């Protein structure tokens, strides 16, 4: 467990900002306890300070996970968000889309969201902004990138993609092996 370097912290926060914008502050300055980001084997964990301290008693080789894993740094130095971060992304998300129940299954199998499957979209969503995908019953299903802005969506034809798929909760069973 080690602190993130300046550079990596910047990359991580830039990435998170795409989805939750200024709400990153909420993640770092919490009223209940001090939470921090820690890195181990290129994975980034978000965990409270007291738990972190206790986790240090376990040898790093044997430590599998602490708190919540947000994602990992790729070999090329980019940050990739994992589906496991959804718990924190969903409540703070800036741009949300809701998909119809008919399109739910499609998305959960890793497909993009088309205009036909789009149930609702939050206003003033920009193109290529990070979006969190919800079902019509407000169940967070995953996240992705808006392929069109909100205004463009209105005029798009039904088969046009409105959201590129990045990650969905189907991965919990599709790829449990490499969640981390």
């Amino acid at each position, binding site marked *: 467990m080690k602190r993130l370097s300046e550079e990596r912290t910047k990359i991580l926060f830039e990435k998170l900002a795409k989805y939750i914008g200024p709400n990153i502050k909420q993640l770092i300055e919490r009223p209940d306890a001090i939470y921090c980001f820690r890195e181990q084997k290129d994975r980034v964990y978000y*965990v*409270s300070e*007291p*738990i972190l301290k*206790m*986790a240090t*008693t*376990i*040898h790093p080789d*044997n*430590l*599998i*996970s*602490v*708190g*919540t*894993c947000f994602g990992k740094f790729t070999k090329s130095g980019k940050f990739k968000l994992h*589906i*496991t971060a959804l*718990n924190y992304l969903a409540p703070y998300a800036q741009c949300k889309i809701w998909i119809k129940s008919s399109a*739910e299954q499609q998305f*959960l199998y890793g497909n993009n969201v088309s205009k036909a499957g789009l149930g609702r979209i939050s206003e003033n969503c920009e193109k290529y902004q990070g979006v969190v995908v919800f*079902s019509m*019953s407000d*169940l*967070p*299903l995953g996240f992705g990138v808006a392929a069109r802005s909100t205004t463009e969506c209105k005029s798009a034809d039904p088969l046009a993609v409105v959201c590129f798929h990045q990650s969905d*909760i*189907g991965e*919990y*069973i599709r790829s*449990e*092996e490499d*969640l*981390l």
Partner: protein
Amino acid sequence: MGRKAKFDEGVIVKKGPGKKAKKQKDPIFPKKLIASDDEPKTLSSHQKKRLKKREEKQTMLLEKRKSKQMNKGTKGTKKVIKPPLKATNDSKYSDSEESLNEGHVQPVKTRKKKRGFSDHNNEWLQPKKQKTVDAPSSDEADDSDQLSEPEDNNDDTVTMEKLSDLSDSEKDQEDDNYNPDSDDDLLPIEKQNAKLKQKQLKEDQDAEAELQLNISNQVKFEFPSEVDESNDPKSLQEVQQRIREVIAVLSDFKNLRDNNHSRSDYVSLLKQDLCTYYSYNEFLMEKLMQLFQLSELLEFLESSEVQRPLTIRTNTLKTRRRDLAQALINRGVNLDPVGKWSKVGLVVYSSQVPMGATPEYLAGHYLIQGASSFLPVMALAPQENERILDMSAAPGGKASHIAAIMKNTGVLFANDLNRDRIKAVVGNFHRLGVINSVISCLDGRKFPESMPVFFDRVLLDAPCTGTGVVAKDPSVKTSKDEIDIQRCYNLQRQLLLAAIDCVNAKSSTGGYIVYSTCSVLPEENEWVIDYALKKRNVKLVDTGLGFGTEGFLKYRHLRFHPTMNLTRRFYPHEHNMDGFFVAKLKKFSNV
């Protein structure tokens, strides 16, 4: 049960007249019975000749008499004309006389009857019985002087009646000596009927006796000889039948046993059959037979074949049970609360969607977990802000339950030795939203080295042989051996001691250890607890579960601690959950 399909509806084929039209026909009697009452028999040529002779004689006789009467009449006395007869048989004689005159039909019948003594001795001498017929009473002789001495004739017929009554009925049929005037008590058909009834009664009695004999034979179970045991493979049905019989014998051994075989013979036969029928290996079956009574054993084996109902646990970190139930019902799932003892469990009876792949499942609103897995966590009763260790956590069902009860406060250490299975823990924790966890991959026995006296509570769901979850993993039936069990309980003892060493006895809220296994064998349960009670300053406390069978105080040669009744056992046949064992210990000092 659905309604029966009527594939042939509308095609009603009438099969003759209805039920009511089928009237019973008039009875048909065999000719023998009704025969010669009214119609005369055709006579054989011999008989015809004799008849002729007789007629001639009679006419001669009549002429003689007439001439006699004429003589008497000439004497001038007024006398009733009477043949020289006895008064009693008067009418009879006259009848026969008339019939003789009419056309000689009757004499044929009377003729055969003659059996008595026809000479002058007949007044006092009577035939003894049918068989002892004297020479003078032969038919030929009768025939010859029958009518010459009419009085004899009649007398004889009377005696004959008596005789025929005494004699057997076959005679009755043969010689139709039916005489409507004298034979007034029974018709021959009635006699026959009475006889038949008697016969039937006897047959019935015989049948009854035979039946009784059969029943007593059936109950008696015959021990198979070794020869036929070795060379004929039996069908499962036969094996099952024999299992039942042997159990019946063993349950009333004194009365039903066969004297050549001891109880151990019967038991070993039963064991063999059970091994064949349920495909266990002999070792495990022997263990189970030592553990259960025979009747209970069968129930246990039977219910071990059947899967337990699918249960799910609501993740209270993300949703409530009522909301979850509603959401699932909307997806076409048929479910019910698991019971009063749990507020988070639901039983799934049927589902139109796979329960492990609904959006609710993926969003972490519930997880699939056996009902028995709720129990150790409920016994542990974790509190908020505690430090809790789950020593063998994979796949994280119980550990996430602990986290849910703690409401994501405090810290939860989830440990498992197996690196492949620990991935499931990671997946489940993130899916269910457990954020207070530290997931490690360590040997549980090493925990006291790094963090002694650190935890408030420890849950040890120890690795075991899995004899309680045979339905889930049938390979247990054949793969386990004495050495496996020995390895298991050695490891369990070490783990339990390590777990106790990790717990802080001075903790303000805790100091508890819960030990559980999914095995039913006392070696892996009570014995392990007993060992820990001797080695560490711990005591058994009530699990707080409120149901379950009490743990054993003694098992075969083993005698356990008297507080062992505070532990709880769960059986598939009794509680409809996997076989399970839960014990709760409290630590009293950190030495």
